[in-house]
Structures are given as structure tokens and as C-alpha cells.
């Protein structure tokens, strides 16, 4: 076992995949000598050269479109969009091109787009958004959002080997976090499977990405108050693993869905709707969503904390729900 950061395992995974497969190609702004804004690709240009670790101009739309073309041509590009907020510039290429290639044109498109969502660093409204909802439900796109290092590695391998466009979320608060991992990297995981990150019978918390980290901490706190929380870590948002969700909800009868982004129109709404459709009679209590405020992410620390789910707010929401009559 070793103790390494999320950043480190992503980097090792990229390196291993690039060693394994000559067609894995990295592209993005300042990913070469700078190593990426969050340092994830640091050192890779020295190993693989500037052809396979391509610094690009600041052109999110073209980066994405070029990667799609390269994927159809025969590469397995892994691109980095420096902050998820900038993916807004690539929406056309992702929705109108990447997502249509297989179902309409019959063309595989093995593309991975890595990008960090999330607030918590005071970066302000255009560097802190969690915009996975834009792509959630777009037929033809997959979305992966791991919350720990082993999963991140296995799923990144799975994403790179998948023949479909995958948006791979690396929450910026995960990067510096340390995790216990095996001495060698795990094997690739198939996309689309949630996992029970913690067992419990009183209430289910459903979360993904950094919110799972907070949910697990909340569960620990609540265990001391004798509330046993089951935490479902979605890991993949699209396709969504409804089966695992329903099994947990049917067992506990109470469910809290945690989402960092604003409440309205979030992914939590879809999860809630599916639970209500398929497990209505198992529910002791209406499904609860705990999400960000319906406001842009502000930069001031006090505002930012107030507008985003926190350990305290999740713990309280879960406890309220567990104890509700």
C-alpha cells in the first residue's frame, strides 16, 4: 500500500495508459512543461515528448473538435479543459458532434475530456462551477465523477478504453487529497457502476465526486449519534446505475441526494424522479435533495461556503431526514 494524492494517481494512470497504447494522446492548455494548471500532467512531456503531450492555444472549441476528429481518425485523445467552466465553449462539439457520432453516423469516438469542476477555492463564478448537468442526459455522452484515487484510476482506464466520448470529472478539491492505494494501479473499470461506499441501514446518501467525500465524513459523524448511513457513490453519472440506487433506497427507505451545483435542474432531480417512480412504496419519507444555492458561485469565503453543501450542512440534512417522523 502507499499513500498518494489524487493528482498523483491520475498522472500515473495517464502514464501507464500512454505506455500501453501508442494512440493515447494528451492535448490541452499548458499541460506540457507547466504540467497543467493543477499539475496533473507534470513530467509527462519529458517522458512522451511534445507530440503526445500537446500544448494547445487557448481554444476550447477547437481543442475539443480536433480531439473528436483525431478520435474518429484513430487516436484515443485525452484532453484537459483547464476548469470545467470553460467547457461551455466546447458544448457544440460535444453535443452536436461527439454525441451524434455513434448513434447517427455509426462511428466510434474514443475521446476522454478531463476537467475539474467545483467550488471551495474562492476562484469565483467562472472558475468554480459544476456543469456536468449540461451533459447529463445528452444521449451518447458518458460522464464519470470518481471520489477516490483507486476508482479514479480504474475509471480513467475504463474511460480511455471506452469507444465513446467520456467527460471525466476531477474535482479540484480532490487533487491535493491523499488516499491509500495499492502498490500497482488497479485494472480498468467498466463505466456505469455505482458502489456502496459505506454500509448503513437508516438512511441512504447518494453523492458523487467531492460530495461523496463529505458524505462519508458526515456518515462517520452520524454513526456516533447512532445513525447508520449508507453512502452510494455514483462514480459514473451517465449511464446512471439506477439499480444500485434503488436497492439501497429500498433497504433504508430514506434518501438524501447531495449535489454541489445549484438545486434547480440538477442531476439530483433525475435521481429523485427515478426513485419516486420505481420505489415510491418503499419510501418512509419523501426523497430529499441537498444542493448548492440557486445562485452563481461567489468568491468571498463566507458566501461561497454558504452557497455550497458542506460537511456541516450535509450532516444536518442527513440527521434531520433520519430523525424525521
Amino acid at each position, binding site marked *: 500500500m502507499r499513500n498518494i494524492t489524487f493528482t498523483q494517481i491520475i498522472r500515473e494512470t495517464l502514464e501507464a495508459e500512454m505506455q500501453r497504447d501508442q*494512440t493515447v*494522446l494528451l492535448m490541452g492548455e499548458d499541460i506540457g512543461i507547466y504540467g497543467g494548471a493543477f499539475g496533473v500532467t507534470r513530467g509527462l512531456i519529458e517522458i512522451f515528448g511534445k*507530440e*503526445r503531450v*500537446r500544448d*494547445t*492555444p487557448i*481554444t476550447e*472549441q*477547437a*481543442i*475539443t*473538435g*480536433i*480531439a*473528436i*476528429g*483525431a*478520435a*474518429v*481518425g*484513430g*487516436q484515443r*485523445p485525452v484532453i484537459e479543459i483547464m476548469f470545467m467552466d470553460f467547457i461551455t465553449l466546447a458544448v*457544440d*462539439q460535444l453535443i*452536436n*458532434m461527439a454525441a*451524434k457520432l*455513434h*448513434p*447517427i*453516423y*455509426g*462511428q*466510434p*469516438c474514443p475521446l476522454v475530456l478531463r476537467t475539474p469542476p467545483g467550488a471551495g477555492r474562492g476562484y469565483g463564478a467562472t472558475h468554480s462551477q459544476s456543469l456536468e448537468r449540461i451533459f447529463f442526459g445528452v*444521449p*451518447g455522452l*458518458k460522464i464519470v465523477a470518481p471520489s477516490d484515487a483507486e476508482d479514479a484510476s480504474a475509471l480513467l482506464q475504463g474511460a480511455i478504453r471506452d*469507444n*465513446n466520448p467520456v467527460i471525466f470529472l476531477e474535482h479540484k478539491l480532490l487533487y491535493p487529497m491523499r488516499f491509500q492505494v495499492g502498490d500497482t494501479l488497479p485494472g480498468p473499470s467498466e463505466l456505469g457502476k455505482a458502489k456502496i461506499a459505506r454500509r448503513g441501514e437508516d438512511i441512504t446518501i447518494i453523492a458523487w465526486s467531492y460530495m461523496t467525500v463529505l458524505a462519508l465524513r458526515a456518515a462517520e459523524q452520524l454513526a456516533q449519534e447512532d445513525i447508520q448511513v449508507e453512502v452510494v457513490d455514483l462514480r459514473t453519472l451517465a449511464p446512471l446505475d439506477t439499480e444500485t440506487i434503488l436497492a439501497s433506497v429500498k433497504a433504508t427507505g430514506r434518501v438524501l441526494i447531495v449535489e454541489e451545483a445549484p438545486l434547480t435542474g440538477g442531476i439530483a432531480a433525475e435521481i429523485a424522479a427515478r426513485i419516486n417512480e420505481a420505489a415510491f412504496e418503499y419510501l418512509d419519507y419523501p426523497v430529499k435533495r441537498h444542493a448548492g444555492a440557486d445562485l452563481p458561485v461567489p468568491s468571498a469565503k463566507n458566501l461561497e461556503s454558504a452557497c455550497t453543501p458542506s460537511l456541516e450542512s450535509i450532516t444536518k440534512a442527513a440527521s434531520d431526514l433520519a430523525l424525521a417522523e
Partner: protein
Amino acid sequence: MLLQEAYRRMLLIRNFEETIEKLFLEGRVMGTAHTCIGQETLSVGVAAALQPCDAMTTTHRGHGHFLARGADPARAMAELFGKSIGYSKGRGGSQMMMDSSIGFYGANGITGGSIPFATGIALDAQMRKTGRVAICMFGDGASNQGVFHESLNMAALWNLPILYVIENNGYAMSTATVRGLANPCVADRAAALKVPGIRIDGNDFEEVRECVRHHADKARQGKGPAVIECLTYRLSGHSRGDPRVYRSREEEENAWKKDPVKTFEKTLIERKIASESEIELIQQQTAQQIEEAVQRCEQAPEASLDEFQNSLFSP
């Protein structure tokens, strides 16, 4: 490509497009289509310059390019009929078909959408050293989309084997080139990025073929991208039902007098490459080919819902 064969393809395209316009009028096909009447020699001129391994992308107005590269007219037309034999199994329609086996990387309904895509295909060609050149066809209107400049810059920085071939047909829908482009010479934009920019007569088959061949060869040798602006004219309306209020009938009539397919035909006869009876035979043959295509479309089974539902993701 022999000149007779080139002529056959031009005629095939013309016939295909006219037939489609008729089918729409008769309500026998659905959706929309953008025909390339007047731009056929350009399509064939480009195709004639390419190697089989080369990759072409196009736009909403792509039937001509596809047929010029050797597409089966029945399978292309079947997309308009929504039939299972279509290149996209009836799911795509006129603007969304692809056949990578003949180096045709697709029509695209988003103006400018295929520009970075083609650039990516060129990137793959460079990485895998396949000797392939990517040919990205698009219009004067599309050249205004910022992604053209983004892509061209990267192609130039990385010396990618790609030609951006602009069909400047005078209009983007109703917008005359001079009203859409502050500088109506698209080729000038290449200079801004130190890329060769060439402007040619897009209706002159041989000029197009030679120019494309020359620059494709250079690109193949690792000398990077070029922008080739082909001046042409869209004789048809923008899409079905276009009342063409933005230009005069007189302008159109004058353009028809210079119909490039007719001009090419005359050249063949003058140069004794084909006799009048050979021309007539080709005309009959293409007309029959298109007629058969229509029949095949009508007899083909409908698009399959089942199959479509199971096709969302690639295995």
C-alpha cells in the same frame, strides 16, 4: 480520374440534386436538403486530386462531395427517404452521413462544425504517419465561424496535413459574401497565420484539380496546411423552399449561362475527349442510375427502430 469519368460524376451529382428537388416538391421525401447545383465541377475537381486514403469532410451541402468521392447514390438518397439502406440507416438525413471506407468523413449540420473535426483527422494522420491528407470543405459563410481560425492556427502551428477548401459561392443562405465578410477574400485570412492562401476559379475543373493536388502533395510531404478558396456560384436555392428574394432572376440567368457542367461538357467535345454520342450515353446512364436509386429507396425497408435503440453507444 479520366475526364470522361469526371464528367460522369458531375452529371450524376446534377441529376441527383435535381431529382431530390423534384422528390421534395412531390412530397416523396421529408426533412430538408441543400443542393449543390452549379458546384459540381468543383466537387469532382477536388475528388479527382485525392488519393483513396485521403479524408474529406463537408457541410450541410455535401451530396456532391460524397458522390464525387464515389458514394452509392441510392444509399445517399435513402437518407432522404429515411430508409434502412441509407448511409446512416435512415437516422441522419441529408446533413448527416459518413462513409469512412471511401474517405468521406461526413456531412455536418452545424455550420463550421466539421472544421476542427477535419483538423483532428489530419492530426491523427500525422501521428500515425498514414500519408493521408484531410480535405475540409466549407462555405464562405462558415469561414466566419471563429472555430475556423482556431483550427487553422493549430494546423499551422503543428504543420498538419490538411487543406481548407472554401467554396465561395457568393452567398451564405441570403447573405451575400460582401455582406457577411468584412474582407470577402477568404484566402486572405490564411496570410494572417502565415499559411498559403490561394484563390482560384472553382468552376474550372482542371484548375481546381491541379491546385488541390499540388497543395495536397505538399501537405503529404509535411509542409503543412493551405487554404484554397474556390470561386463558384450556387445555382440552386439555399435549401428547399428558398424564394431567393436576396438576388435577382437576372443574376441567376447570367450564372446559368456559365453553368460549369455544360461548360465542361463543351470542353470535352471541343478537345475531342468525348463525342456527342458518348456524352449522350453518359447522360442516359446517369439518369438511369438515379432512377434506379430512387426505386431502390422506395423498395427498401423503413429505418429500424430496434436497431436504432441499440446503437447509442459503441461497443
